[in-house]
């Protein structure tokens, strides 16, 4: 029996951050030392993945201004639209794929039982969103711009403002979690987690761009963040 699942462009592991990146101290004891085992012939196990088209979403799941209190009160902070297109490496849109995101509030505090930063929780902000991309691969969230916050790495390390973004894509081979940073943030070049990437162009893939055309006058700014997942190859010559 032949597998008829499409394959994907090989993931360039020199483009992504290495497992061992000592400037980010937690990676030191959490990075494998053995070589990864390469699967030259991927199977259905790698080339298939979940389709979340039937996951029932709440009406505010992609609206972080509303979803924690169902609109009873608005959160503090700069109101923004975060949107973009999920596409593969050939520029082909990825429709109906699950995009999830989470973030700190405007003061840089996460609503998480382990976050004890001085900045207070915002009673009107949870910090989680999800949506499916539309027919053209676009996703859209409404939220507030998160604040930077200090973290224990070097003596005085600060995270640039960022939003964690998770995308599934067409199979578990395209699974990706990244962080979106904000164009022009002076903390980006100082961040040890950003520095896990060797190539400045790789950092650029994670920087959302201010998009005045899509902002709403007297309401909110917009940031555009396109997400590129591994290119899906068409299957030819499979019965060789």
């Amino acid at each position, binding site marked *: 029996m032949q*597998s008829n699942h499409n394959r994907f462009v090989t993931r*360039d*592991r020199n*483009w*992504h*951050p*290495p*497992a061992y*990146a000592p400037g*980010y101290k937690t*990676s*030191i*004891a*959490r*990075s*494998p030392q053995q070589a990864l085992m*390469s*699967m030259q*012939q*991927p*199977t*259905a*196990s790698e080339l*298939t*993945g*979940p389709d*979340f088209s*039937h996951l*029932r*979403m*709440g009406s505010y*799941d992609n609206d972080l201004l509303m979803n924690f209190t169902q609109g009873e009160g608005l959160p503090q902070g700069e109101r923004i639209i975060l949107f973009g297109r999920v*596409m593969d*490496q050939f520029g082909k849109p990825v429709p109906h794929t699950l995009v999830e*995101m*989470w973030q700190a509030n405007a003061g840089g505090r*996460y*609503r*998480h039982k*382990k*976050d004890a930063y001085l900045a207070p929780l915002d009673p009107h902000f*949870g910090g*989680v969103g999800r949506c499916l991309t539309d027919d053209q691969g676009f996703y859209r969230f409404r939220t507030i711009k998160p604040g930077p916050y200090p973290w224990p790495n070097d003596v005085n390390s600060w995270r640039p403002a960022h939003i*964690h973004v998770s995308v599934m894509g067409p199979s*578990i081979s395209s699974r*990706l*979690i*990244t*962080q979106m940073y904000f164009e022009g943030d002076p903390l980006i070049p100082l961040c040890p987690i950003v520095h*896990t990437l060797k190539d400045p162009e790789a950092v*650029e*893939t*994670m*920087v*959302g*761009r201010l998009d005045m055309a899509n902002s709403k006058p007297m309401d909110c700014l917009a940031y555009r963040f*396109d997400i*590129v*997942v*591994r290119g899906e190859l068409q299957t030819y010559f499979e019965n060789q």
Partner: protein
Amino acid sequence: MMKQPNTQPMSELMLRETASQTAGPYVHIGLALAAAGNPERDEEIWSEMVKPDASGEHIEVVGTVIDGNGDLVRDAFLEAWQADAEGNYQSDYDLRKPFNSFGRTATTFDHGSEWSLKTIKPGAVVHPNGKLMAPHINLAIFARGVNIHLQTRLYFDDEVEANRECPVLSRVESDNRRQTLIAKREEAGGVIRYRFDIRLQGPGETIFFDF
């Protein structure tokens, strides 16, 4: 003038993949709301992959994640992808179905810090070479300090013959390393449970795959 988009070219024909970053210590607020202590939405993607009427052998899969110092990783988040009892991946995720091929779990902040999944034992899946791969669950591990998720396979210790014939498992040259992919069966209170501890680094380091 057009602004430079955040996507980057790889060649004239292709784009670069968006770069990975760690899921961080607070991944739970986004992908594992109950583990963060936050209210859940109507439908969450979580660790019960089966309903009681799902066909197949109902099992639990549990384990820890251990770092290079031998300490428990308490903030790990995992995703599972597996075939149904007949060996088919069910791509359509729907909580009204008796079984879903996809699940999520996390280690915990309490003493034992175990992740767990309720599922069925998967059937054998056909390899492109026509042979059968032994039953297995694909796992992805995300955590603070993990810059790009780690991918492994969980096999079952009571599938001796199938494991020996598996075209993927049999490619592992080191018998010691092959053992890191094999979950151990234990029965407790009528529950069939398989234990699979994941070692990120050092002695007994789990095999992680690139695909």
